[in-house]
């Protein structure tokens, strides 16, 4: 396991490579992630060619259990987001060691 990249690291590269200032870069990283979230919340899948697809799935209600007290409950129906990595990304990471 290597290090952890954060929004700050992503923004720093934009400063270096596009010449945006620090605040603009950070704002742009936030704007990008926000726009993806907003699309997903509006029911839109987000397909980024080469990188991967963020796909929404609707899950039905199912019986569950509260892990803390063992009580049986119903897990409410929900929408979840899944990520299907693109071919290019898969190829890039599969044999890293």
């Amino acid at each position, binding site marked *: 396991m290597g290090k*952890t990249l954060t929004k700050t690291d992503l923004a720093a590269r934009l400063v270096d490579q596009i010449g945006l200032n620090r605040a603009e870069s950070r704002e742009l990283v936030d704007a990008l992630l926000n*726009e993806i979230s907003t699309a997903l919340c509006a029911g839109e899948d987000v397909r980024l060619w080469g990188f991967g697809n963020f796909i929404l799935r609707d899950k039905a209600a199912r019986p569950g259990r509260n892990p803390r007290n063992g009580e049986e409950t119903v897990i409410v129906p929900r929408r979840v987001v899944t990520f299907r990595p693109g071919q290019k990304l898969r190829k890039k990471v599969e044999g890293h060691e």
Partner: protein
Amino acid sequence: MPARENASQINRSQLIDRITTKQKHLSPRDVDEAVKLVFDHIAEGLAQNDRVELRGFGSFSLRERQPRMACNPRTGDHVMLGTRHVPHFKPGKSLRERLRDLFQ
């Protein structure tokens, strides 16, 4: 898990358009370049087995797949696949909760 019927979708260029509309002080060219750089950076990080943690949105990391014998469906040849890694995304708490609340 059922796939959604009539699911609408957006692609990279639509995403860039939406960002550009709201970030009027940035040129569309810079936004386009920045989006490309961000995803390249995430991909590079994953290729080095770095974790990418984007607070609120989610995190990307690698999951290890066990080595296995595989069969080429076209030729029927058996090949040994070594340990492989696949990218994994875990949505962040705030994205998960937003989606769940909107869906209720």
